[in-house]
């Protein structure tokens, strides 16, 4: 144990000396958190829209007003002629074009079905799908309001019964998307920094030849690895603290649950991320290789963790694959604790999964790390 101290001390001295690296190590998570918080989203805003209102009645203008007030659409242009619309797409001036047909109000008043045409630039298919959903929702609301009004008018006259949902939202009353995303970003950053730094740290010593010098010393494998990894674990906790502080101060994310619980789970989770870093460094020969391998794994972990792509919508076979992703569990834990204040009894299985993964990956990686050369 005495020897571990010296490795840790050396590691910190090196980190401290390497100014550019130190700056990047702290800048990278902060910049990413600041950018990702605004960028990573399954919300689409300011959709450039052109409106072709052929009806031009109070009712049609009401519909256009709803579109504008939704906050999702940036209605930039009004076009009188339908035939002019395609050029908006060709020039990239608009993504959505909405055509309200002539006699729209009249048809509705006569209870005659009517059609609204939605033209879209489908290049960004994700945004298009989401925008389509928004328009659908706005139309539904438009209809509901109209019908409710109508029914209320008839209520005294006719025998009308209306089932109306009374909605109450728990935990995130304002439905703020950042409350959901920002904790996820903190998880992603923790994963990225710890796995990348631990992967490159050992490979660097191998590349520079200092690893050989360590291997001829009477130091046990576990002493060497623990000594190398503890500073990275500490770094992980620094990143985590920084991330949580930024979430709280900058993004104003409420933290309902217990931070001690987050710390406990982070500790469990670090075995997985450091284990992955160790695994990579046991197989990579150069830092570049290590970085590539880690990057590759991170993309997988990110897409398969429910970070911004919901797991529930994936095909079943791929959903099973996500169970092999430790980030999935930790992502859930952090969000549940942050937003809902979940406690250990609700996160029991996640804890066990992280424990199994952490010890499994860590043991496997340690075994792969040979003290002798090949």
């Amino acid at each position: 144990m005495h020897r571990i101290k010296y490795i840790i001390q050396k590691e910190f001295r090196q980190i401290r000396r390497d100014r550019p690296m130190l700056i990047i190590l702290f800048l990278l998570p902060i910049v990413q958190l600041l950018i990702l918080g605004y960028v990573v989203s399954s919300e689409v805003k300011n959709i450039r829209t052109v409106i072709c209102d052929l009806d031009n009645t109070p009712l049609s203008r009401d519909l256009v007003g709803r579109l504008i007030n939704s906050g999702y659409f940036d209605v930039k242009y009004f076009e009188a002629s339908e035939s002019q619309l395609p050029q908006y797409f060709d020039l990239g001036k608009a993504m959505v074009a909405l055509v309200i047909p002539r006699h729209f109000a009249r048809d509705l008043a006569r209870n005659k079905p009517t059609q609204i045409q939605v033209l879209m630039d489908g290049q960004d298919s994700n945004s298009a799908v989401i925008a389509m959903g928004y328009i659908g929702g706005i139309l539904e609301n438009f209809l509901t309001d109209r019908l409710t009004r109508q029914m209320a008018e008839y209520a005294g006259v006719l025998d009308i019964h209306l089932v109306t949902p009374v909605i109450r939202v728990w935990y995130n009353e304002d439905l703020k998307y950042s409350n959901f995303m920002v904790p996820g970003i903190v998880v992603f950053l923790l994963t990225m920094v710890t796995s990348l730094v631990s992967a490159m740290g050992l490979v660097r010593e191998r590349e520079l030849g200092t690893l050989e010098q360590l291997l001829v010393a009477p130091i046990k494998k576990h002493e060497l690895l623990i000594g190398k990894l503890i500073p990275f674990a500490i770094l992980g906790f620094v990143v985590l603290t920084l991330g949580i502080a930024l979430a709280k101060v900058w993004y104003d994310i409420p933290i309902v649950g217990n931070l001690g619980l987050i710390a406990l789970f982070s500790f469990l989770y670090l075995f997985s991320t450091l284990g992955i870093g160790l695994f990579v460094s046991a197989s990579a020969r150069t830092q570049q290789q290590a970085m590539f391998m880690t990057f590759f794994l991170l993309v997988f972990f990110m897409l398969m963790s429910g970070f911004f792509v919901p797991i529930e919508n994936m095909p079943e076979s791929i959903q099973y694959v996500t169970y092999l992703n430790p980030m999935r569990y930790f992502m859930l834990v952090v969000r549940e604790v942050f937003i809902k204040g979940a406690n250990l009894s609700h996160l029991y299985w996640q804890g066990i999964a992280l424990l199994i993964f952490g010890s499994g990956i860590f043991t496997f990686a340690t075994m792969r790390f040979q003290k002798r050369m090949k």
Partner: protein
Amino acid sequence: MNNPVQIPYSVQVEELTRCFGSFVAVDHITFNVADGEIFGFLGANGAGKTTTIKMLCGLLLPTSGKGFVEGFNIYTQSDQIKQNIGYMSQKFSLYEDLLVRENLEFYGGIYGLDNHTLRQTIETSVMATGLREHLEKLTRDIPVGWKQRLALTCAILHKPKILFLDEPTGGVDPISRHQFWSLIYELAEKGTTVFVTTHYMEEAEYCNRLSIMHNGRIMDIGAPQTLKEKYKQSTIEDVFIQLVKK
């Protein structure tokens, strides 16, 4: 080697072999190194010197043959071996971004010296090597000759019984090389066995005994003087050339 029973051996090697795929890097070599001896391994690049040293230090497993360092089996007791050896490789494996003092503290630390001993050892060894004035400098900023002395100091902080030096003087000027060898003589006088590989012929002359290696095989072993007489040559270089040409 008239009286093998009386001489305690630091290194005993019998028919040691190491292959990399179909390439035989070390080919059934057999030799002993006595306690306190300066034993040289002379050979061209790729003769198998470094591979041999790595096997003896426990960095590499042999393909076949036997080997003992300080009485410990190189197959099974590499942990005990590591406790008793010092090692310095051809590229100085120091942390360039640590201070000289920090490198010393680190290597002393991982060899398990307690704080008190560590401080004392560093004190005495920087006195002996003249590293004192560089103690608070970044390792990357000191001249190569000093780096080499620092690497040697790091390798002997824990007072190993045997010191393995793998081409320790590569890229170092003759004066530094000379100073380096006086340090090695001092060590040997105090009873440390020194096992050194080199391809500098004049360095070979400094050794008590010499093994000339070529293509993974030991061509001959003996004291430099004995070898010169045996092959009727005036320098080790000529002995070497004659042996290699055969």
